[in-house]
């Protein structure tokens, strides 16, 4: 673990060095690409402002992640247990993927307003399919031997689902959730770009418009940290979930 943190620190330091070198050597003006020191200063000077907008984005992402995952889990269970659901829902599910979520953002803002919910819904839409499809695939790939055994034991369909198929599909669900953790912020930020009065996406647009490129980068760095943190937390939870499956 210590070695991993050291590695991450080393890579970060190298990247920051390259960044500064690029700025210095190419003699880029700060309104095109500010150096890391300048961005750090902007971050420090605007900590309260960025913190507030980060909190807004974080709430949107978290709500989207929870709702989208629950929705995906329920859908996958429905699909896995009912042939009718598979025939009816599955084509619709694929169709939703044919629509770029980005294109829906203005409509969602129109319907749900500038507040939290249009962003939450964007995040939900963007993670719903990966979660559903990863969990559903897991549910449909229960090792045949387990199902044979359950059949000779005269398992009830309910017990077979909850005691065999679902536990066997948890690694699949975990990979869906890991993806969702990095996708959800994308959804929320797109929502904020299209129409918002709060959030890191909004702050970046605002800063860009006022040529405060260092502030824009500071918001971007915070967004990246937020996504990374979320990814690590969800990965940890998933590892704990699947450690029992080995």
């Amino acid at each position, binding site marked *: 673990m210590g070695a991993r943190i050291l590695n991450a620190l080393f890579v970060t330091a190298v990247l920051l060095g390259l960044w500064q070198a690029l700025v210095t050597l190419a003699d880029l003006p700060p309104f095109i690409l500010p150096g890391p020191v300048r961005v750090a200063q902007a971050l420090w000077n605007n900590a309260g402002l960025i913190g507030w907008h980060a909190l807004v984005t974080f709430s949107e992402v978290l709500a989207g992640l929870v709702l989208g995952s629950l929705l995906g889990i329920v859908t996958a269970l429905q699909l896995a247990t009912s042939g009718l659901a598979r025939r009816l829902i599955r084509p619709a599910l694929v169709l939703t993927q044919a629509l770029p979520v980005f294109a829906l953002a203005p409509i969602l803002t129109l319907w749900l307003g500038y507040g939290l919910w249009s962003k939450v819904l964007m995040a939900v839409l963007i993670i719903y399919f990966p979660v559903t499809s990863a969990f559903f695939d897991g549910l449909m790939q229960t*090792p045949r*031997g*387990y199902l*044979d*055994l*359950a*059949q*000779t*034991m*005269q*398992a*009830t369909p*309910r*017990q*077979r689902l909850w*005691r*065999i198929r679902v*536990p*066997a599909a*948890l690694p699949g669900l975990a990979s869906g959730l890991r993806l969702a953790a990095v996708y959800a912020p994308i959804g929320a930020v797109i929502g904020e770009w299209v129409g918002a009065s709060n959030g890191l996406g909004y702050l970046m647009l605002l800063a860009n418009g006022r040529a405060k490129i260092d502030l824009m980068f500071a918001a971007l760095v915070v967004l990246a940290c937020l996504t990374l943190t979320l990814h690590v937390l969800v990965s940890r939870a998933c590892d704990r979930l699947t450690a*029992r*499956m*080995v």
Partner: protein
Amino acid sequence: MSAPAIRVSGQAEIGGATLFGPLDLTLEPGGWTCLLGPSGVGKSTILRLIAGLDTGARFTGQITADGGPLPPSHLAYMAQDDLLLPWRSVLGNVMLGAELRGQKAERARAEKLLSDVGLAAHSGKRPAALSGGQRQRVALARTLMEDRPVVLLDEPFSALDARTRADMQDLAFGLLAGRSVLLVTHDPAEAARLGHRIFVLESHGLAQMPTPPGAPLRAVDDPALLTAQAQLLQHLRGKA
């Protein structure tokens, strides 16, 4: 619980091609019937037909227990893969059947069976912490937990090393006494050691083989057993 005589009569085809021709197989009631044969000849299909499992083959004929239908609640199944659920403890795996039926598992009996197979000290562990032989013993305890008069064994010992396999044969034979057991195997030595009745399934039909002298479980160093297993092997090779 009386151990019924299971009879399979009929034929099976797979994708229009004959898997096995008309055959008539009656299992030893309350004893071990060993079914030998080359791979892909349909041994496991017969076992799975009795178990009521998917085979992918079309079977025409009938399967009866003492002349009547065989209720699914009369059989237990054990395969080459131990099929232990990795997320359950050893004890949890032994108690799986009752839970899958939505009943309350008898914990004391499960613990007793685990100690019968020599794994009392491992009941809280996960299957991944056990050796292959130990895992098959857990699977045996799970099979016994079902307490069924008919037990279907699909090559359960074939992945074990020679010594573990002989130990497992001893253990299973003792613990499954009084039940009608069908053992599908490709090992002539195993069939000669355990069988009250021994059959060889080949593409052209089913042949009942002479059983070695003496009642099973036969001693591994019995010269008559060694002769019998050699004869079985010759028969399998088409040289008898």
